[in-house]
């Protein structure tokens, strides 16, 4: 039998005795250093004691304590922070730390860069394909090291690794997954971030489940490039800010904006300084897929705290996509696209926040007008949603 012959051959494929001996010797002299936990444990115990002793002391000095409130920014230009620490006055900076000189390369995209955007998107596809998918929900089960990823302006692809899980071996393994061809490795770079994407998604769900927050929640979206969540509230209620502070004690998971959601039916004070992304939707080619996603997320993510002037409002036009409601959870809607368009394909799933989400039910046909921005998550998240209307028929 040939199978027996191949097995016989495979059994003969063994490293030389010299290599085996050398490996054994290398392993013997290269024991992994045991974790020296005792000094760390001692320091941690001391720190814990100091904290335990300090908290009542500080409380007694400061008198009766009002609940801590999360910082927030008014989108009409007022920068307000009611967080108790002055460090919270500004919207928290992104926690992702740049590690690649090429990551934020500027410059206009041209034909060559469009090609490399597609190449970068191929890396994204491969990484996503390597994550297991929940057969019931269809949602990807992101590993604890994965902080998100995005396509860069220069066409490359950046993976955000959770700081404490970032190792050379992990990077090597990811490179092996997303770059089967050697010449693709130049497209890949890494950043470290503080939070796993799965944690950010969990936080998103907590927002929607929290009554004080959901009652004033206009929108919430995970900004993968920033490794945080942008939350828009219709008003800065103390209960909501306190709950946000409880969920985000370090004030760096949420960037909280306060202002009304843009709507197509009324003029709104949308600051062009704050929202540099054009409301004129970028046209998408007819046959597009992930390769055709915008190479860069809109600057809205980076300038949330930079509002200054209220400019005459321009009713946003946006793009429209037809879909069917799959699920409504709080203010969040999960829909399935029914007609190709706006950069989405039929049967794609998309999620977004909408204050009147509760008025829709599963299977409702809807027409969604949004800014055209599609975040590269799964399911994808729509950018600014301007209107959601029940579609006829």
């Amino acid at each position, binding site marked *: 039998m*040939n*199978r027996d*012959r*191949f097995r*016989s*051959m*495979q*059994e*003969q*494929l*063994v*490293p*030389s005795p*010299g*290599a*085996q001996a*050398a*490996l054994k010797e*290398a*392993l013997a002299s*290269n024991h*992994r250093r045991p974790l020296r936990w005792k000094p760390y444990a001692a320091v941690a115990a001391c720190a814990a004691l100091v904290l335990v002793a300090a908290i009542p002391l500080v409380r007694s000095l400061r008198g009766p304590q009002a609940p801590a409130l999360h910082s927030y920014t008014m989108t009409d230009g007022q920068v307000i922070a009611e967080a108790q620490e002055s460090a919270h006055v500004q919207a928290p900076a992104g926690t992702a730390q740049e590690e690649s000189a090429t990551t934020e390369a500027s410059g206009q995209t041209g034909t060559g860069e469009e090609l490399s955007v597609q190449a970068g998107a191929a890396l994204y596809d*491969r990484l996503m394909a390597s994550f297991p998918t929940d057969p019931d929900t269809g949602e990807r*089960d992101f*590993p*604890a090291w994965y902080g998100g990823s995005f396509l860069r302006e220069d066409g490359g692809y950046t993976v955000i690794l959770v700081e404490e899980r970032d*190792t*050379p*071996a992990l990077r*090597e*393994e990811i*490179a*092996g*997954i997303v770059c*089967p061809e*050697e010449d693709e490795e130049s497209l890949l770079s890494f950043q470290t971030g503080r939070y796993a994407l*799965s944690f950010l998604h969990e936080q998103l769900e907590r927002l929607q489940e929290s009554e004080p927050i959901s009652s004033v929640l206009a929108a919430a979206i995970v900004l993968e490039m920033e490794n945080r969540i942008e939350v828009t509230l219709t008003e800065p209620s103390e209960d909501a800010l306190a709950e946000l502070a409880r969920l985000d004690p370090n004030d760096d998971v949420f960037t909280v904006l306060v202002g009304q959601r843009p709507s197509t039916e009324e003029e709104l004070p949308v600051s062009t300084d704050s929202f540099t992304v054009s409301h004129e939707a970028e046209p998408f080619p007819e046959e597009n897929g992930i390769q055709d996603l915008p190479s860069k997320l809109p600057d809205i993510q980076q300038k949330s705290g930079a509002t200054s002037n209220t400019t005459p409002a321009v009713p946003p036009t946006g793009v429209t996509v037809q879909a069917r409601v799959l699920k409504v959870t709080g203010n969040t809607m999960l829909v399935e696209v029914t007609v190709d368009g706006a950069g989405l394909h039929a049967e794609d799933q998309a999620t977004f926040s909408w204050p009147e989400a509760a008025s829709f039910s599963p299977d409702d046909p809807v027409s969604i007008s949004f800014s055209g921005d599609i975040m590269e998550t799964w399911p994808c998240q729509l950018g600014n949603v301007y209107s959601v209307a029940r579609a006829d028929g």
Partner: protein
Amino acid sequence: MNEPLRTGGDPEDIIRLYASTVYGLALARTGSAADADDVFQEVFLVYHQSAPRFRDEEHRKAWLLRTTLNLSRRITTSTWRRKTVPLEERPDTAVPFRDPEENRIWAAVAALPEEYRLPIYLFYFQELSTQEIAKALRLRPGTVRMRLSRGRDRLRESLKGEYFDEP
């Protein structure tokens, strides 16, 4: 969420269990016994030092295969290597199988272009499924089947026989 990962297994047992797998793949990839020896050592040193955690044995095997390919690629594509002796001219490429016929089969496999050689090797010698090969080589299963088919055609021509029949 994700299950807790685990390392598990005595290092020596793991080496014993996977030495042939790692070495064979490295040999198929590099075409050199000396390089395969180097890759074999490197893979298990990396394994030992990074202590990766695995969901199950299949995950461990996939990690070892992938790391073997990565380290093999690093060796064969290094600047030093590209400027020195071509693989086929290296004196250590022959593998002394016991049976001359086996040497002939291996020589035919080794002569295949890499895109056919690795799927053929993994399928027939390591008895991986097309799905597993696709995962290890980061290819679509359809691409693997196509490469297996073309690789078989070439082997039939070079060996004048049906050693590599359809599954």
